[in-house]
């Protein structure tokens, strides 16, 4: 493969977005789109630089990032724990699975009025929503992953003397891991969606607040900036999840 070929492969996926931004800039500066509706990308960039320089951007970014992370850690952690319990023990499945499946059918966004009644517009409200939404994808995939571990391998490991923790660590967990990580990736995507909604509805900080606040002052450039920031954050966290997959699943033929 020549260098040009490599370059082409690297750059080709970005060609369409780059063209789009150029067209957007051109249309905005030639008055085809009013700057109220969609400010030119350079304006958005300028707004970003201003906010970055006065430090506001980083404060809000940090807060949103922590909310997503903590909410996901709580929800994902609980989902993993419940999934392990129901996946590993028949009794646990009998006791818990039906209840979890029932709660799963509640759309998280339907809880918003109740969440506001419970927590007001506190930090806890956002964390609760994110945790609630991320619990189920991780739960389902953990449970399903453990149940679909190759029974032949478990039988082999048992007959080679593995019991309890070593059996779980060496056979069941790695066997369920591909499925668990699918759940994690899904949950991460979902965490951002829920956070956007929660921050837009009620917040005094975070990117969603930044956007809503800017709307009141008709700062369309900042609103667009906030939307783009969400996209970037979502993409970054997906990259992180994929990176973890590549490390943990490097034995898998799909990652070689």
């Amino acid at each position, binding site marked *: 493969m020549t260098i040009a070929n490599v370059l082409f492969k690297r750059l080709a996926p970005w060609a369409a977005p780059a063209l789009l931004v150029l067209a957007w800039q051109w249309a905005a500066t030639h008055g085809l789109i009013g700057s109220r509706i969609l400010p030119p990308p350079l304006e958005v960039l300028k707004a970003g630089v201003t906010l970055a320089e006065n430090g506001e951007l980083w404060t809000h970014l940090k807060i949103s990032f922590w909310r997503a992370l903590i909410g996901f850690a709580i929800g994902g952690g609980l989902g993993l724990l419940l999934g392990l319990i129901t996946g590993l023990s028949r009794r646990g499945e009998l006791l818990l699975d039906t209840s979890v499946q029932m709660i799963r059918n509640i759309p998280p966004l339907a809880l918003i009025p109740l969440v506001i009644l419970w927590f007001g517009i506190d930090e806890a409200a956002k964390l609760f929503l994110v945790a609630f939404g991320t619990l189920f994808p991780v739960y389902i995939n953990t449970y399903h992953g453990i149940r679909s571990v190759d029974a*032949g391998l478990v*039988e082999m490991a048992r007959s*080679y003397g593995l019991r309890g923790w070593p059996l779980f660590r060496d056979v069941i967990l790695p066997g369920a891991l591909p499925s668990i990580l699918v759940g994690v990736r899904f949950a991460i995507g979902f965490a951002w969606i829920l956070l956007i909604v929660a921050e837009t509805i009620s917040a005094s900080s975070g990117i969603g607040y930044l956007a809503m606040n800017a709307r009141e002052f008709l700062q369309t450039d900042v609103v667009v900036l906030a939307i783009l920031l969400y996209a970037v954050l979502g993409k970054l966290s997906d990259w992180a999840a994929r990176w973890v997959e590549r490390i943990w699943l490097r034995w898998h033929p799909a990652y*070689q």
Partner: protein
Amino acid sequence: MTQTTLEGTAGVALAIRGLSKRFGTQTVLTTLDLDIQAGEFVAIVGRSGCGKSTLLRLVAGLDRASAGRIDADGVPLAQSGADTRLMFQDARLLPWKSVLANVGLGLAGDWQPRARAALGEVGLAEHAHKWPSQLSGGQRQRVALARALIHEPQLLLLDEPLGALDALTRIEMQQLIERLWQRHRCTVLLVTHDVEEAVALADRVLLIEEGRVGLDLPVPLSRPRARGATGFGAIEEQVLARVLRQPELATPQVDELPIAPGALRWAL
């Protein structure tokens, strides 16, 4: 496996009485009786689907018999605590562990040098760091063989361990199994489709048919056995003749066969 000082790991004696196994309405084994001496090397042959793997799984304690019992040294096998290892017909390597770690599965302490030595003996030393998915079928089988042999069990159950190997590697692995058996004196049950392999390795060749032991033939040849030795071919043909005579399969009589039985030793 190589430099262990654990001498005198003698095998267990097996006594199987009235062993039956049914899957739903299908009866695979019916009131099978079998005695195996401690340290004996027994080969089991039989047509595909006759219940060889089923018998091995019962002896390994992986399935429960529908009726009958298996005793080891006079005690029920499950309670005897006899150290048993089964090499499965499918290799069953853990895909997320390196080849070396697969061989060392279930070993405690400083297992790496031992696993490396075991891999060396099956000729795969340079593949130690690979993932199982990067090996060929025959290589995977040899990893599974190394994993079974490294434990030096009292009772070693091998389910077609060399099925996917070429003729040359096959003979090497046969010699390896024989060598290890002579060193540790464990009891070995070897399932194989290759009658020549059975005669080359075993003290006794058993044929399973209709859920029972249809033929129990001692192999009184001295070791190491050359394929061309006088008694060898005769025993081999005796087993083949018996297999081909199985009535309900309506195969022609041996003397009517257009080809010599010896040419059919892979036909099981």
